């Protein structure tokens, strides 16, 4: 299974489970997450969600480049469609989400963490909006980073594609707490449980308001992303960058 799904009382825990690929998101994993979160949104018994990654290295390395580079020219639309469903399910989830960032969160993996409500990370977690390094514009990523951090930090992170540390993320208020790997899940569960115990009507209405603040901006960014990505791909630059990336890794 690409995603482990576990119920613990009022909590639903989703673990990205492709450790050998640094938990990079392929279509099957995205589908599993969409189904689990949509079900949780409708399930009165689920009061909070935890997202984490398997293993000690990565929370989520982002999109699976093996999958994206094998896209057929006419497969692009359907592929983008699965991404839009993924973003909608996470960003509009009707239950609070805690991200337990157990390692690297890159690209779409960073976006996943940014769409959660609270973030707890191991001190060695690394964060990066890596798109520029593989020749892709970071459209939804720019929106999410800007929303959390403002323009000044967003621009630097998006244009350099550099790693930022858990320490920087804490200083900026992006990560609420840091915990050692041995204590990460325990703390994430305590944070999720704390949210699960809030009065459910107030939680539902508050989340509706918070989700609403992001809905228009994020959906506008996703629409823009489709045309920006196509424009990049039409030049051949991302394909060449990714080929270089795989060459370097061999």
């Amino acid at each position, binding site marked *: 299974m690409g995603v482990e799904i576990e119920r613990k009382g009022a909590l639903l825990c989703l673990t990205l489970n492709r450790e050998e690929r640094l938990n990079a998101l392929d279509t099957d994993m995205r589908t599993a997450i969409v189904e689990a979160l949509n079900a949780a949104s409708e399930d009165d018994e689920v009061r909070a969600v935890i997202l984490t990654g398997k293993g000690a290295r990565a929370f989520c390395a982002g999109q699976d480049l093996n999958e994206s580079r094998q896209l057929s020219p006419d497969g692009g639309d359907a592929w983008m469609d699965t991404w839009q469903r993924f973003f909608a399910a996470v960003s509009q989830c009707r239950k609070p989400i805690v991200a337990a960032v157990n390692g690297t969160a890159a690209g779409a993996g960073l976006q996943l963490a940014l769409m959660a409500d609270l973030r707890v990370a191991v001190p060695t977690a690394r964060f990066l909006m890596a*798109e*520029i*390094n*593989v*020749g*892709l*514009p*970071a*459209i939804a990523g*720019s*929106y999410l980073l*800007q929303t959390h*951090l*403002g*323009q*000044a*930090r967003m*621009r*630097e992170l*998006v*244009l*350099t*594609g550099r790693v930022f540390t858990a320490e920087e993320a804490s200083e*900026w208020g992006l990560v609420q707490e840091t915990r050692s790997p041995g204590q990460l899940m325990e703390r994430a569960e305590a944070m999720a449980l704390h949210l699960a115990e809030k009065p459910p009507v107030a939680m539902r209405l508050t989340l509706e308001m918070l989700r609403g603040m992001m809905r228009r901006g994020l959906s506008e960014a996703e629409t*823009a992303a489709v045309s*920006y990505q196509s*424009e*990049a791909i039409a*030049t051949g*630059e*991302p394909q060449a*960058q990714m080929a270089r990336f795989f060459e370097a890794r061999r």
Partner: protein
Amino acid sequence: MYEFLKVSTEGKVGIITLNRPDVLNAWHSPMRRELAAALEAMNADEEVRAVIMTGAGERAFSAGQDLNETKSFDTERAREWVEEWRALYSAIRGMTKPLIAALNGVAAGSAFQVALQCDIRVGHAGSKMGQPEINSGIASTLGPWLMKEMLGLSRTIELTLTGRMMDGEECHHIGLIHHLVAADQVHAKAMEVAGELAEKPPVAMALNKRRFAEMTQPGFEDALAAGSRNQKEAYASGEPQRMMEAFFAEREKRKQNA
């Protein structure tokens, strides 16, 4: 050739130096026109992949508006003036290459705004920045809009109403200066950052830059429209002209006493 700028390239990096050091690189209309033209030329030059903007001398990146120009404004000239800013800011916003501000010294008022529209800022402890417009009786509109995009409302209001200048440390702490280095390292660090960005894939770089402009376009238009209304009203009151005359009288007195 430029009268008020120095322009050069080093490898893939273009360097624009604001060059009126005797007036702390303050700008007037002709200098702003040159700056817009230089940026557009860099943007069109295929050999250039990143651009650094800096100031001549050791004291200032730029003091912003040359008050010698504005002190004699009437309401019609004030309205034109806002349109001149549209031209310069549109040139900056239209850059499809990364723009790095090497803050060799103070960046005040509109120079602070120009620095904030660069992508990455390198500075030192003496790189003071802020929006002192209120102190010259000039109403701020573009500055608060830019600050709010970067800092949120709380800091924007405090900085706009007090006209307080922040030192380099504070700017670094709140994320406005990305790299805080020793004064004699500002240029080298800016070159390092520019060199790194010059190696990024240019299509993705240009698309990100275009998207940043697109994301902020409604706010930009709104701030310009408000700027036009506010400047007209402020100059009609005679307050900015009086404040600037007072500023020059004060400076003259200091010179004579010195």
